[in-house]
């Protein structure tokens, strides 16, 4: 391991490991690497916690019997990492050079070098790609309930997607809104039953299963969602003032600029979280996998951290 003498005001630019993304996967990997006594820098463009930080309550991560706010969980993980000497750069990564022994990570603010790189950039809520969506984003169309719910006090809204995200965020939105029309592509509700039960206790919710969103309609503001029933082809407009979209995830891999092979946009790894490039690892939601949860991200992060330590030790 190398030591660097840091002068005042001079930023250290070389680390043993560079971790891109401070969600649960990246932070867990960083904790494991730091415990192996290697230097780690974690890049984060928003705040530690990743997409989970936007969730008002995480109830399926063990250790928190009453659930934990996403932002709080991120803060606790960050604190644990900092206690171990993990450093943070609140900068957005825009490019990478991953081949060779020394990897480079470029942000808007500067360039950094590392012997190993961990890609833990997670995923974001996917756009539907329907007419009206871009036009009304931030003006009636939202992908973040905790951010935008107060704007919809006593209003009628639609939530697109009845997976765990849609139901969990729907429960939060119900504290503010007058009613929710849930729209689901599949003929069933994919969310955990415990969430379904809680949502269905509310009288001001309605489900439109087996419906595909065709368009978000409105002139100056959102006036409704045009949907099609998938089996009959019947179309209708559900009148709402706002639309929250939680219909699947999209990996945050644009910064790789085609420098790594992806599958459906996701990074492919082996069970040790190694990618096809030596010294480059990936963990969490950005990885090709079956279940994207805080618990699985943490599991990925642990395996990844251990693999990075092995790699850095030359084993």
């Amino acid at each position, binding site marked *: 391991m190398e030591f660097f003498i840091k002068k005042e005001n001079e930023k250290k630019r070389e680390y043993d490991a560079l971790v891109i993304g401070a969600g649960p996967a990246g932070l867990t990997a960083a904790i494991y690497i730091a415990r192996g006594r290697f230097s780690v820098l974690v890049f984060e463009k928003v705040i530690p*916690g990743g997409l989970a930080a936007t969730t008002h309550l995480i109830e399926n991560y063990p250790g928190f019997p009453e659930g934990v*706010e996403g932002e709080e969980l991120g803060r606790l993980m960050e604190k644990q990492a900092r206690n171990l000497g993990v450093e943070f750069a*609140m900068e957005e990564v825009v490019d990478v050079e991953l081949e060779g022994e020394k990897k480079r990570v470029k942000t808007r603010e500067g360039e950094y070098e590392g012997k190993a790189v961990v890609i833990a950039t997670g995923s974001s809520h996917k756009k539907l790609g329907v007419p009206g969506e871009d036009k009304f984003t931030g003006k009636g169309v939202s992908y973040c309930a*905790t*951010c935008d719910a107060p*704007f919809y006090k006593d209003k009628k809204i639609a939530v697109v997607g009845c997976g765990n995200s849609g139901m969990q965020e729907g429960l939060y939105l119900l504290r503010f809104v007058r009613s929710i029309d849930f729209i689901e592509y599949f003929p069933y509700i994919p969310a955990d039953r415990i969430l379904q039960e809680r949502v269905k206790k509310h009288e001001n919710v309605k489900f439109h299963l087996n419906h595909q969103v065709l368009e978000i309609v409105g002139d100056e503001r959102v006036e409704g969602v045009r949907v099609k029933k998938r089996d009959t082809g019947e179309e209708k407009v559900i009148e709402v003032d706002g639309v929250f979209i939680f219909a699947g995830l999209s990996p945050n891999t644009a910064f790789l600029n085609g420098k790594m092979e992806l599958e459906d946009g996701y990074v492919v790894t082996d069970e040790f979280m190694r990618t096809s490039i030596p010294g480059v690892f990936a963990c969490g939601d950005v990885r090709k996998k079956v279940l994207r949860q805080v618990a699985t991200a943490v599991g990925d992060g642990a395996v990844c951290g251990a693999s990075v330590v092995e790699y850095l030790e030359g084993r």
Partner: protein
Amino acid sequence: MRVIVFTAPGCPWCTRAKNYLRERGISFKEVDISRNPSAARDLVRMTGQTGVPVIVINGKPVVGFNKPLIDRLLGLK
């Protein structure tokens, strides 16, 4: 210099914006729109948008954590 940050609880970019202002030593007033429905309505009127954070610097609203614009309005390099 008068800086007001409109936020909602659990909004990550709001936390990022507040952290940034603190890092740069800028004092600000925070308005949580989930506790202040009229502020939410005012924001929609002011910006035409339904999102936070909104950082109002000397009366000029910045929607989202637009660092270059924030820096410019604050006179930071």
